[in-house]
């Protein structure tokens, strides 16, 4: 019998892997993919809770998250393109203009 814990633990694993992607990859595209992974992991948790609590709010929230993810990807990728144009390079570790 599957319990909510099965899904949430899977969600936790995926979330951690997404975080790891963000932290150790240099290509901003793949970093975005890591972010998508984390968002999806959270979505999974939402849907799981929604199912096991018999409450549809979780699923509605997933829709909102989907929207935000789409918006974020659009803007993020536009940024990547802009940076690539300006610097001919999209290595995150060479973009250090935030340096104090």
């Amino acid at each position: 019998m599957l319990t909510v814990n099965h899904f949430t633990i899977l969600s936790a694993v995926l979330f951690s892997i997404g975080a790891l992607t963000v932290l150790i990859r240099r290509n901003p595209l793949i970093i975005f993919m890591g972010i998508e992974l984390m968002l999806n992991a959270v979505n999974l948790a939402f849907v799981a809770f929604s199912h096991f609590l018999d409450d549809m709010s979780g699923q509605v929230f997933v829709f909102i998250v989907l929207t935000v993810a789409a918006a974020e990807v659009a803007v993020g990728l536009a940024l990547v393109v802009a940076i690539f144009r300006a610097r001919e390079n999209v290595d995150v570790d060479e973009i250090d203009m935030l340096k104090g």
Partner: protein
Amino acid sequence: MDYGAFVEGLVFYLFAALAVLAALGVVIARSPVRSALALALVFLALAAMYILLNAPFLAVAQIMIYAGAVLILFLFVIMVLNPRLDIIGARGRGQTFVAIVFTIALGVLLIATLASGQIAPTTGKFTPEFVASIGHVQVIGTLLFSEFLLPFEIASVLLLIAIVGAMTLARRERVPHAESKRDLR
């Protein structure tokens, strides 16, 4: 042992394993294209999970939006930029190591927290039977346009802003360059 439960379990573990392996693939693959394809697998696996969780509409949306739109966008950008093979690991070895250690710690902590938790007895009115009697899409649609109307509208505004922003960012500088003139023609 209940046959249905066994199949459910089988499907869950199968797709869970697929999701985790594909996610690891995203991390490990040096080529961005492969990472993207691995990500597609994760999306598909999660869509299967949604079906298991009795959310078929979400499963379809997941495939259409994530695997369809988002991923295709990724692939387009990869194609435009044509980046080199990526080096895995951050600038400093130390940082990569610390990142891995703390990510594992995060995972362990999350799992420990979630595994020790018990879910409360169900109280919601959207039992599977109730949802099935009305229709999943209809339930979600009704909710979106009644109880969650404001978040829905805000989300649509957000999308609009994102579209405008993306266009502004990705547009070429309007410098009267020889190249851009040629592009105009």
